[in-house]
């Protein structure tokens, strides 16, 4: 029987959704595989392992260590390699998150293995991934060695949670040491809790937002929707918001269920970063704006008029 490791990811002790997607991806790679969840962290590790099993893993291996409180390449490589050596898996699945992007190439290097990063679909032994920021796609296979992929959050649906499902959880002692990079401080700047790359709904602003304050109505709309706020390069370059919000060919590539573009003209570089969203709403004063060519629903109008009204309408809906 093949064995696939599905790596969970904790952020401040909370398990991230993409973790459950790694379990689902492992199942899609091989329906009959033994899926072993791997949970690395400093706290709530057992709880996360249980959740991984409820979401479809057969069993879990955990490593708990104070030095795993925050992700570091050295700490997590030592922990992950210890698990990999113990389990000798046929496959590995990680999230294509900040930590996954940093860790997976190094693990692949240590294993002398191929790695297909940032996949959005699985078709047998072929992995679908966007290239040129979603302007095109490719299907890749791994010629030999272990099947090793990172999955883009929000693209591979997790399995149904089964609260009654149980499995073995074993803890592995790893002596983590000699970290060559030391985290001195973590400054939380991202909007409360909702991360752009994992958000189901994104409200994004462009040059039409006109100022830093102009983002306020967008944040209010995002609040009602539980959405993350993003921006076009135009808005970032103009200094209306931080570059960490940028969506596009440079910046983040996102595929939420709903993307609401406010005052974004729709330059090709921006479209590359968001046009694979499931449903796109465009709000723009200019009826000729390119964004309307990719939008499912468009409102021609001033975002400072439309967005607050939309927020009110959604609030009213929630009250009902």
């Amino acid at each position, binding site marked *: 029987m093949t064995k696939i490791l599905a790596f969970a990811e904790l952020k401040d002790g909370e398990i991230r959704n993409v973790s459950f997607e790694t379990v689902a991806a492992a199942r899609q790679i091989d329906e009959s595989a033994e899926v072993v969840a791997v949970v690395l962290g400093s706290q709530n590790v057992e709880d996360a392992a249980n959740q991984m099993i409820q979401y479809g893993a057969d069993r879990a291996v955990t490593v708990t260590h104070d030095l795993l409180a*925050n992700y570091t*390449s*050295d700490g997590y490589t030592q922990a992950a390699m210890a698990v990999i050596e113990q389990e000798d898996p046929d496959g590995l699945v990680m999230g294509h*998150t900040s930590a996954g*992007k*940093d860790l*997976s*190439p*190094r693990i692949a*290097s240590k294993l002398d*293995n*191929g*790695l297909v*990063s*940032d996949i959005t679909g699985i078709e047998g032994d*072929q992995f679908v991934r966007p*290239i*040129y*920021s979603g302007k*095109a796609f*490719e*299907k890749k*296979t*791994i*010629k*030999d060695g272990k099947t090793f992929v990172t999955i883009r959050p929000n693209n591979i649906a997790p399995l149904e949670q089964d609260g009654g499902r149980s499995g073995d959880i074993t803890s592995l002692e790893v002596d983590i040491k000699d970290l*060559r*990079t030391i985290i001195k401080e*973590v*400054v939380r*700047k991202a909007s409360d809790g909702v991360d752009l790359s994992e958000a189901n*709904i994104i409200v994004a602003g462009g040059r039409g937002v006109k100022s830093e304050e102009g983002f306020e109505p967008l944040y209010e709309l995002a609040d009602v*929707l539980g959405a993350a706020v993003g921006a076009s390069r135009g808005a970032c370059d103009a200094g209306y918001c931080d*570059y*960490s*919000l940028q969506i596009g*060919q*440079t910046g983040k590539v996102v595929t939420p269920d*709903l993307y609401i573009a406010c005052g974004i003209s729709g330059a090709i*570089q921006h479209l*590359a970063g968001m*046009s694979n969203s*499931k*449903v*796109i*709403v465009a709000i723009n004063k200019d009826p000729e704006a390119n964004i*309307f*060519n*990719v939008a*499912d*629903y*468009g*409102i021609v109008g001033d975002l400072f*008029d*439309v967005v607050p*009204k*939309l927020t009110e*309408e*959604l609030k009213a*809906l929630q009250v009902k």
Partner: protein
Amino acid sequence: MNIYVLMKKTFDTEEKIQINGGVIEDEGAEYIINPYDEYAIEEAIKIRDEHGGEVTVVTVGDEESEKQLRTALAMGADKAVLINTEEDLEEGDQYTTVRVLEAYFADQEVDIILAGNVAIDEASGQVGPRLADRLDIPYVTTITELNIDGDTVNIVRDVEGDEEKIETSLPLLVTCQQGLNEPRYPSLPGIMKAKKKPLEELEIDDLDLDEDDVEAKTETVKVFLPPEKEAGKVLEGETDEQVKELVSLLKSEAKVL
């Protein structure tokens, strides 16, 4: 200080992608320096101007890559190295590139290597961390601030919008994120000077490698375009009506609320 930059050329971001005979059509495409690599080049030049030393820009590519290397030299890099794999390798992947770079760096004294955090074409983000692992040096990805003081390096990195402040030491590999700096444009004197700066061209044979040593671990089976998105519905009426209709459509038709 021995400062190296890993550079890749990519399609201009304005380029539309077309597929011809199962591969991406590159005939007539405009190329640029991968935008994230521009941050790496700029930062490398700043480090040299502050601490002294030499900036060498390295690319694994083809004959055409010389143009982007000359641009990097015109920005202010001192030397360029083109490892031309065009004639020796049919298909490579990140493993291939790193084997080639590893062989190149085996003979170099390195204090710091800078790279883009991702290339906007293949977008794997693997080469930097893989190379650091092979060279057994620490790496920090997606950096937005870098300060070197002796052997100590203080870094700010972007972690999905949050900032991590990190302390590490040389030798080191970093991958650069937007926000790190504002890459300069080559000046006219810079362009003139660049023509005379050294550009070394190597083939894998010069690095004592043959095709089998660097054979890709992955294979691209197919390349395809996403389905054309059809323009949707532009809503009519007064703003209030449009907003009501939008909410209703999102709920009942699109089913995303």
